[in-house]
């Protein structure tokens, strides 16, 4: 085991002519974690992956992956320990899934039977001898994942891996990533599908305009923002009474049609308010929603825009 982090980026910048794709990004991804790399199109996600893969050289800064430099003499050794799934890859349509995967296995210097085992693992064994042409989008994606898993990589880089997967397949996919994490595999996956992803990743990094806007666990990100917690109240109370509950100016209240109340409270004032609500009459149910990834994402990407409320 190496003590080095899976990915260590230090002040990296990358320009393409006049365009600055990445600018001063520093990020350390320790081994054995699942990271979500978030950002809108053109935020620099793919450029960052390509830098980690050694497909590009940084214009400034240093990239170390599993303790090695991805471009240069160590690249060959490093590439045997990395698995990559590009976005929207179209595999060789005229080959069967098994043939394609065996081809990739040979290129990675692995025995053909490893390809067969991986086809089982991604549940493509039944379709292994059909041409890829006949595969659905989800099957292609699973084949791509099998390809990335060749050679027991220590680091997985997955570009939009769940596109085209149905919810059940998505769940299985993340389960597979968790199993791998338990074996010490690090995963960096990019995604623009925000809802639900926070349950599956340990940490997120948000890129925007070529800069790293935020990184850390959901809790760390929440702590770094003034985004309110949403408290939903169900119950019966006479009109006007609820205003007494929320005299604090930092708290805003919205009435819903059914008479329910939605109260937005800064994270710091949450417990005080809850105590009041518990003691109040007529409250039948309380549900609590911390700011979701979407709200955090919107906050970090557009810090100047009006505060968005969690749904």
């Amino acid at each position, binding site marked *: 085991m190496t003590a080095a982090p899976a990915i260590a980026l230090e002040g990296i910048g990358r320009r393409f002519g006049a365009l600055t794709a990445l600018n001063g990004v520093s990020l350390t991804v320790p081994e054995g974690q699942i990271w979500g790399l978030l950002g809108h199109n053109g935020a620099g996600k793919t450029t960052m992956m*390509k830098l980690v*893969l*050694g*497909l*590009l050289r940084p214009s400034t800064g240093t990239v170390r992956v599993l303790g090695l430099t991805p471009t240069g003499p160590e*690249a*060959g*050794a490093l*590439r*045997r320990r*990395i698995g*990559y799934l*590009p*976005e*929207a*890859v*179209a*595999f*060789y349509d*005229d080959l069967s899934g098994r043939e394609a995967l065996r*081809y*990739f296995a*040979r*290129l*990675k*210097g692995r025995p053909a039977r490893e390809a067969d085992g991986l086809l089982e693992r991604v549940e493509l064994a039944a379709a292994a001898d059909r041409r890829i042409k006949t595969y659905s989008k989800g099957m292609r994606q699973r084949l791509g994942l099998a*390809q990335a898993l060749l050679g027991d990589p220590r680091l997985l880089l997955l570009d939009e891996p769940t596109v085209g997967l149905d919810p059940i397949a998505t769940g299985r996919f993340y389960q597979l990533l968790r199993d791998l994490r338990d074996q010490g595999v690090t995963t960096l996956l990019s995604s623009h599908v925000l809802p639900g992803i926070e349950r599956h990743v340990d940490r997120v990094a948000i890129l925007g305009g070529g800069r790293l806007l935020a990184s850390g666990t959901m809790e760390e990100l929440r702590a770094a923002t003034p985004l309110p917690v949403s408290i939903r109240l169900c119950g019966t109370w006479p009109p006007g009474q609820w205003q007494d509950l929320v005299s604090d100016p930092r708290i805003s209240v919205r009435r819903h049609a059914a008479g329910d109340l939605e109260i937005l409270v800064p994270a710091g004032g949450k417990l005080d308010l809850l105590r009041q609500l518990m003691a109040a009459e007529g409250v039948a149910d309380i549900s609590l929603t911390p700011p979701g990834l979407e709200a955090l994402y919107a906050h970090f990407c557009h810090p100047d825009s009006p505060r968005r409320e969690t749904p």
Partner: protein
Amino acid sequence: MTALFAVAAKEIRDGLRNRWVVAIALIFAFLAIGLAWFGPAVSGTVGFAPLATTIVSLSSLAVFLIPLIALMLGYDTVVGEDESGTLTLLLTYPISRLQLLGGKFLGHAAILALSTVLGFGAAGLLIAALTQQLDSAALWREFGFFILTATLLGWVFAAMACLISVSVTEKAKAAGLALVVWFGAVIVFDLALLGLLVATRGAVGELGRVVLPYLLLLNPADVFRVANLVGFAPARSYAGLANVVAADTLSPAVLVAVLAGWAALTFALAAWRFQRRNI
């Protein structure tokens, strides 16, 4: 090395699977047999022409066909994978760009060699058997030389296809460029040279006589023409422009070496450009 051969093996398997090998071999065989059969009919006789005459007419057709086939086989080899996204993926594997391109070229070279030898070889055997020349060693040497140079010509243009494929970012552009290269090599170059001769008639004189053979070496298609037309005694009257080249100026061995050099140089240029390609 394993990776290089894995790429080559895949290209060959693709070639067998999408029936390139069979198609090319059949085209060559039918061409050879057809020319042998119809060749004499033009002069009023019916039946198979001897192999030597067939080789001559065959090479003037092959010079058009082989470059076209080789270019079609390989023009999209890199740019096609780039468009489908597999190129990026392959380059994250422990395989260098040189190995990847080399494997692809090796695969295409094997496909061309296989189908040339199979197609022309089978046709040659058939024609020789029908014209009772099976035991002529000299004839087989000439036919073998034809197949060798035809294969080398294919390799030159397979390397050209690699060069085209690594130089563009869209498949459609590669196809267009391949056509331009083909047209330039098999038609325009000769026309330009001919025009030069006509325009400077008389003025070229002794210098032109010396320089012209070497100008032909600048076009691999002409090297193939010269090698196959000039080498045969019965071919002199067909050889046209290539006939200007005295047979003793350039020996067959030199011409073979020039063709091989063309293939090697073109591939080296393709590999160099591939290294500089942005992914």
